């Protein structure tokens, strides 16, 4: 039950986050039409529960609802999480300490050579839970605290998940760039 003034207030606080909401939905669903549906559904849900936002920061609160709507849609549409099952043992050059054992930096050089399409394709291969934290951090500039609120995990988990997402992405990009160079 809302009157026009409340609706105005909701729109004033929430519509500025529409771009971030749509970006996150596209990142998770990889389909513009579904992303639009998810965002629309999320806004309706947010509107219904607007009273519960209380003092919370609007953006993470909204993005959390968008994220939930996306995951429900993925479930409902039985969409695959990624193009393929991501086996970190296969994809990453070494396990936990990969970043540390690099010789003088072929990965950074490979990443610098990677074009935007390739980076996007590689990101699309990461499982959702890794793709979403990367996007929230690198594109939306969310703090760890905000990401923790969106993804509903502790800050420590945000940190380790981001680290793992970056390792995965580095290794996939590295492989692709090297594959291109050798013509495979």
């Amino acid at each position, binding site marked *: 039950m809302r009157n026009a003034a409340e609706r105005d207030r909701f729109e004033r606080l929430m519509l500025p986050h529409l771009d971030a909401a749509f970006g996150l939905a596209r990142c998770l669903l990889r389909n513009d*039409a579904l992303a639009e549906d998810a965002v629309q559904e999320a806004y309706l849900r947010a509107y219904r529960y607007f009273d519960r936002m209380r003092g919370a920061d609007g953006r993470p609160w909204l993005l959390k609802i968008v994220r939930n709507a996306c995951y429900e849609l993925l479930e409902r549409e039985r969409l695959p999480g990624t193009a393929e099952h991501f086996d970190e043992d296969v994809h990453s050059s070494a396990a936990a300490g990969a970043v540390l054992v690099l010789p003088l930096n072929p990965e950074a050089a490979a990443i610098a050579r990677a074009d935007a399409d390739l980076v996007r394709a590689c990101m699309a291969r990461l499982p959702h839970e890794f793709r979403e934290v990367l996007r929230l951090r690198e594109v939306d500039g969310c703090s760890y605290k905000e990401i923790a609120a969106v993804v509903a995990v502790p800050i420590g988990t945000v940190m380790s998940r981001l680290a793992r997402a970056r390792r995965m992405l580095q290794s996939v990009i590295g492989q692709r760039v090297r594959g291109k160079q050798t013509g495979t």
Partner: protein
Amino acid sequence: MNCIEAGALLGARADGELDPAQARAVDGHLATCVRCRAAAQSLEALARAVALACPAQPAPARLRAAVRSSLRAVDGDRGTHRVPTGWLAAAPGLAALLVAAWILVAQPWSVPPPAGTRVVYHLAAAESVDAALRTLRNHLEATPEAKVVVVAHNNGIEFLLHGAADASGRPYAELVRELRGRGVEFRVCGNTLARRSIDAGKVISEANMVASGIAEISRLQAREGYTYLRL
């Protein structure tokens, strides 16, 4: 600080999430360790690459309009219950009384008890249309008094366009007409039509257009006590 400890904090350092003491300790290590410096550079290169590859893009104007219109759609049917705001301002006591009476009578926060079964069928995929229509007919055989609304969007709208026919060549319009005769309503998502540049005139006359399929489904559930069925 050694390489393992520093390595675990490099991401947080790049993200500006370290407290000043930690940041100083990591920087101190980086000053002496060429490998960790390279790893830090990799992270920076990666951050730049991701930001370049995924620029923050504006959402389509259409989506903004759809969100705003769907908010209005869920608010839509409460116009008749609106408390006159002028009175509210003038006489708070009377206003409170009016609000209380309005809550008692209109019960705006509760879903009205449905008279008979009300079901909204959500059709979003072309391949599920035949099965859905079959299910719908069985549903009506079992409970002829059920009130069914079919909301079609995305690829679920095709069968409501002129000239659409099932695998046996039977025009869907016939089936839809028959179901209309049994009280079933068909609603097509206007956003889907706009997105796919389908002229509204292509929709058969037995179906009605709504601004947004999603908003319509939400509204039917939240405001009219419909049960949701996705097929």
